[in-house]
């Protein structure tokens, strides 16, 4: 629209589905994978659209939401902590187990440490009181213990199997 061309201030990211999403350099910087794109000589801010074949629009916008919120609320005041906690709870609320895992993959692909750490903690909180069966299924781990071996471990740590949540 403007006649004088202003330098473009956002980075264009193209998820595997949906439209291009523009993010501020501040946010993009926190995604290591994007950062290495930007640092590449062939990168031209005005024209380059960074393709993200492993990330959906939903996942990308979730991650951007998280980074946006948290970069604006670094203060340690109690009321800020309280609203951050609320944001984090809401953020996780809309994620079913599979979505959570997929988002973890996306955050891992984009290599965004803050989100990765947050999601790992979320998974840890989720599985903390769960059964062995639940966790095996969640991580897709194949049981390579023999029945006797597993029984033996269960006996040794019998106390750790008390108070386990229903799957």
């Amino acid at each position, binding site marked *: 629209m403007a006649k004088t061309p202003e330098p473009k201030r956002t980075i264009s990211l193209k998820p595997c589905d949906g439209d291009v999403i523009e993010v501020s350099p501040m946010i993009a910087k926190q995604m290591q994978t994007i950062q290495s794109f930007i640092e590449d000589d062939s990168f031209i801010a005005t024209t380059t659209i960074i393709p993200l074949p492993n990330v959906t629009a939903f996942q990308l916008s979730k991650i951007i939401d998280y980074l946006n919120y948290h970069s604006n609320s670094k203060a340690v005041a109690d009321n800020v902590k309280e609203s951050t906690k609320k944001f984090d709870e809401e953020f996780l609320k809309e994620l079913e187990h599979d979505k959570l895992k997929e988002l973890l*993959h996306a955050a891992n692909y984009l290599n965004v440490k803050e989100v990765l750490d947050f999601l790992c903690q979320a998974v840890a909180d989720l599985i*903390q*009181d769960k059964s*062995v069966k639940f966790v095996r*299924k*969640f991580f*897709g781990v194949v049981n390579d*213990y023999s029945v006797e071996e597993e029984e033996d471990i269960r006996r040794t*740590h019998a106390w*750790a199997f008390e108070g386990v949540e229903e799957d």
Partner: protein
Amino acid sequence: MAATKDEKVSTNIPHDLVFNILSKLPIKSLKRFSCITPSWADLFENPNFMTMYYHNFFRKNDHDTSSILLKQGIPDTYKDNLFMLYGERFENKVKFDWPPPFQGNDIGCIYKLGSIINDTICVYPRISCGTQFDQKVILWNLSSNELKGIRYGYVPCPPGIHFMIALHGFGYDKFTNDYKLIRRIDYLQDNSFWNDVRVDPPMPSWELYSLKSNSWKKLDVEIPYDESYDHVYLNGMCHWWGCTTYNEEESVLVSFNLSDEVVYTTLVDWNGCHATQNRALMVMNDSIGMITMHEGNTCFEISILGELGVKESWTKIFKIGPLSCVAYPFGVWYKGKIFFHKDDGEIAWFDLSTRVLEEIGIKGYNHNGSSTINPKPISLVTNRILFKHPPSTPQLAVNFVMHFPSFPAISQYILVVARS
């Protein structure tokens, strides 16, 4: 078919992410998940996992700036100086005053009981044995500087008998919003030749004080105890070490729940560390932790308790050493640092992440002026509190170390302080 589909979705969480997730789990979950696959079985032996585990462990109170509040005995007196040390290496020192109840000339050593709770520490002058006490236990709110005095009250005592009081716990009952103290009363025979009637002294009794009702009530329980005087408060419970009555060799962690008054005991294996001064009880990231000295007192091990009442749930998470010239642990855990008393009396901290031992430049003086430091440890407290005193200092959060009442020879308190 459905199962295969599920598996497909579930696979491929990269290995380092799985470890990252596991490293954030409590011990109980990790022990349970050790039967998921052999590679998850010995995580505490796995250096890659431990690196991540430590990283999380130290990160818990990352943004606090640590300081120390130090009570230092004045040589040849029974008086104490109180200093606050802060800064990255505790290099800044501020001296400040004891509150009025502790300023009199007749006040000797001052002790602290248990942890700091809601900015409040529990301090008291040395208790002498007798049949009545005029002294008080003081609850000192370090943030508001408000003081509350608690009387020992009247303890009925048969003729020919006197008693001794040992304080065991200071805690907070969040359900009734009430501060509580636990004490043990030992009855002893008067050692007098003029005493014609020899009476058998009653068994020790236990009493619970409630600040709300401002009274002591008798607890109808037998609770183990020993002479180590390590007391900590965590999550509604007061904890201390004890020996079981049926087997004095058998040590337990005693955990007293302040709201339902139930006593839990957890067997402890000292692993050869039998001298009470060589071990310490502490709160580490919301868990009960213990530090024990081994191998000619040069190496230390730190274990945390996974589940109350379960001996097997003590899990060794750190092995430190060999360190030279270290005498005994204070047991203060603060921001990845453990505090030690050195052979020469210097106080030093050991950074568990960098594995560096550094002196803080303060000597632990001993009250009777002799050069030997009685190696009886100081029990410690690890809750952080806000600290508005002295006024020139910004708000600080504090950890306190307390002293063993029966050993006036050492008089070193450490409070670890953190700016909030």
